[in-house]
Structures are given as C-alpha cells and as structure tokens.
C-alpha cells in the first residue's frame, strides 16, 4: 500500500469547492483549521452561510487586511478574523451549547483516519512522546448535526486514511457522515463506505485500491 502520493484527482481547492456546493443557504457552519477553512472561499453565489468559531463568535467574516487585525478578534485557529453584520459574541459555555446542543448544522474537519463505521481519529497519533491536545474536536463531532471530513485520500506515505477500523486514538465514534477527498466523495452509511462521486478521470477501482475497507458503488 506504500506508493507515491497520487497526482490524480481534485486539488485542495477543488475539494473545498466540491464540498461547498453541498451546503444549503442559511446553514450554521463550523470549519476546522487547515483545508476546511478553504471551503468558505467557494460558497456559491447567492448562498449565505453563518460561520461559528468555538472561541465565541457567530457571524465570523474573512481575515482582515494585513496589519488590520485585532488580537482580541480571532478564530479557533488563533488567526485574526472579522465580524460580519449580524454577528454575536458569547462566552465559551454558550459557544459549546451551540455545538453540543445540535444547533450547528455542519462541521468540516480534517482527519488522520475515518473508519467504515464513521469513527474519526484526528487529534493524536498516540505516540508516547506526543503532547496530547484535543481542543474542541470531540465536542464538535459529538454535537454538530452533520460532520464532514475533507482530507487527502491517503497519507503522505500512501496509506489509506479511510480504514476498516481506526488504529489511532478516536476523536469520536460513529460521527462522520461524509468524506471529501482528492479522489472522491464518499458517504458513511450503515453498510460502510459508499461512493457518491468520483473526481474527474478517477476510476472506481483506483479509489477502492486506496481505501482500507470495501467501497460500495454509487447508489
């Protein structure tokens, strides 16, 4: 299973763009750090999403111009952001009430591994010398209505990230609804991974070979 990183399929931007198509107008959305953040750039014209950042802001806007940032107006990744008209600030217990209470429609996260049962591992390699740090990931996957993963289909060493069962410590059990990779869009169903869409030029078998559990065909 160790092979060079594939050069076929969607770029990171295209993955984000593909995911953005699937978010309905008016959704309350929490975007994780990294590739998930790119999603905001590709929301189709005419749709308004409201972004939640768990450190206490609903209605988060884009990054300010260079040098215009306020060190007390940041996102969960600790980057300077802005507040859109209609924004609200609140404290951490209220912010996680939004998350845990199922008020946020969609959360987009990166992943180290996703299992065919929807288990997610994205916070720790479990290595003994790693500094454990979890942040809000466990709360997000446990509480948000839909949880999408956006990730390269395989690791840098070519190992599948979509697996039969996670070997890394879990972030949550049975929490992932859908996965967007460079190769495909894949749903997590009661029957396991099911293909929703292939990226242009990519074939089913190619994806199956790079997936660590059976991939059901498009339904």
């Amino acid at each position, binding site marked *: 299973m160790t092979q060079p990183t594939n050069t076929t399929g969607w770029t990171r931007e295209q993955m984000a763009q593909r995911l953005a198509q699937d978010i309905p*107008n*008016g959704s*309350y959305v929490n975007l994780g750090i990294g590739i998930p953040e790119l999603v905001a750039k590709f929301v189709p014209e*005419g749709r*308004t999403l*409201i972004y*939640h950042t768990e450190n206490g*802001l*609903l*209605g988060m806007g884009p990054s300010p111009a260079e040098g215009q940032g306020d060190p007390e107006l940041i996102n969960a990744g600790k980057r300077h952001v802005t*507040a*859109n*008209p*209609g*924004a*609200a*600030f*609140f404290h951490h*217990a*209220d912010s*996680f*009430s*939004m*998350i*845990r*209470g*199922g*008020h*946020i429609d969609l959360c987009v996260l990166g992943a180290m591994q996703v299992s065919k049962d929807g288990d997610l591992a994205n916070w720790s390699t479990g290595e003994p010398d790693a500094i454990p740090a979890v942040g809000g990931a466990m709360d997000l996957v*446990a*509480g948000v209505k839909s949880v999408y993963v956006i990730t390269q289909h395989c690791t840098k060493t070519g190992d599948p990230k979509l697996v039969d069962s996670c070997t890394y410590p879990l972030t949550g059990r049975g929490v992932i609804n859908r996965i967007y990779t460079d190769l495909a869009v894949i749903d997590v169903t009661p029957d396991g991974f099911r293909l929703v869409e292939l990226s242009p030029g990519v074939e089913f078998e190619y994806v199956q070979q790079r997936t660590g559990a059976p991939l059901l065909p498009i339904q």
Partner: protein
Amino acid sequence: MINKQVQSPAKAVEDIFDGATVMIGGFGEAGSPIELIHALIDQGAKGLTVVSNNCGSGEVGLAALLKAQRVAKVVCSFPRTANSTVFPDLYHSGKIELELVPQGTLAERIRAGGAGIPAFFTPAAVGTPLAECKESRVFDGKEFVMERGLKADFALIKGKLADTHGNVVYNKTARNFGPIMAMGSKVAIVQVERVVEPGEIDPEIVVTPGIFTDRVVEVANPAHESALVAAGVCYP
C-alpha cells in the same frame, strides 16, 4: 441572504401541531408573548404540553390558552396566581396534568436541553416530595437529585428588538426564560417591537444569538397582561 422575519403572529405559529411541546416565556406578565399566544389560540392546536414558569392571569394570554382547553399538561414552578381561576378550575376538575418543578431546576433543565446535556445533578428539592421517585446521589458528602434536560418543539418568546438573523435583545426583567427557551426548543419564535437589519445590534450586546432563533415577528405595541386583565378582557 438570511431573513427570519415572518409577517404576522398567525404566520409565525401556523405549524404548531396537536400534541406539541411548547415553551412559553415570561415570569408573571413580564416577557409573556401575549400576541403569539393569542395567535396560537386562533390557530387551534390542542393537546399541547406547555412549559412555562406560571399559568397566566385573568382570561388572556396563557390563561386564555388554558381556558380554551388546548393544553393537556403544564410543566411549571408556580401555577397559582392571584387573578386567575382558570388553572385551579381545570386542575380540580382533572382536565389538566401538572408537573411541578422548582424554578431553578426548571430553568436549568431548559438550558440543559438546549446545551445537549441529557441530565445533571442539583441540590434543589432533595428530601422533599418533589424529589420522590427521582434518582439521587451523593457527591462530596452532599446529596443531589438527578434531573433531565428538557426540550420543546416550539418556544414562544417576547423580546425587545431583533435583527433578521434572529439576534435578540430583551427588556429588563422580561428577559427571564426567553434566552434559555430559545436554546431549548427546535423552533424558537420571538415577537419583538421592532425587527432591524443585521449590523444594527452591537454584537457585544446580543443576548440570544441568531442560531437559537428561527422566526422573528414584529409586534410594535405589545399588550400588557395586567392592563388587559384590569380592563376585563377575555380572549378570544
């Protein structure tokens, strides 16, 4: 474009269904969403479970909803009121069920429901009839009773001002149960004196962030329960 404003109380409550659980804001008359309640009476839904701190006064607002026999059960901390015989009459004739909950437990259960907390422990009511048949447990040498989070299908709430994204601010002690009922309900319906554009409410002073609000409706000059009762009004 997001716009949660609806054009009338009638429109705001049109999908409240028979048997629904409805949280109704207010402590006494402060914060009682009278126009929304009257619209609900007109709409006709019945067999409701109402979660509210009181049971209204006179024969307007919440008391009128009870009087019209639309409510099968109330979850309430203080159903007795000086100026109403509506609840006592229904209760004594066995036409309404009462779940009596200490006020702070009621508030916390509603918040918990909205915050995704299925259960929590409280010292209130330990050793009293209201804790009978409830699970209790000792933490650090003190006894607590387990209470469950409470969720509703709808909430009827009275605010002061809202924007079209559903951010709400309240007026004085009319705030009471509004913010937590917005959290604890699937569909939170808020009447306010004025609906404004996003950006007109300072994000630092928003009390109910829009994510908790589903519909806002303008009632420019809301009635006060005490004034209606004093005038002898019976709704409808």
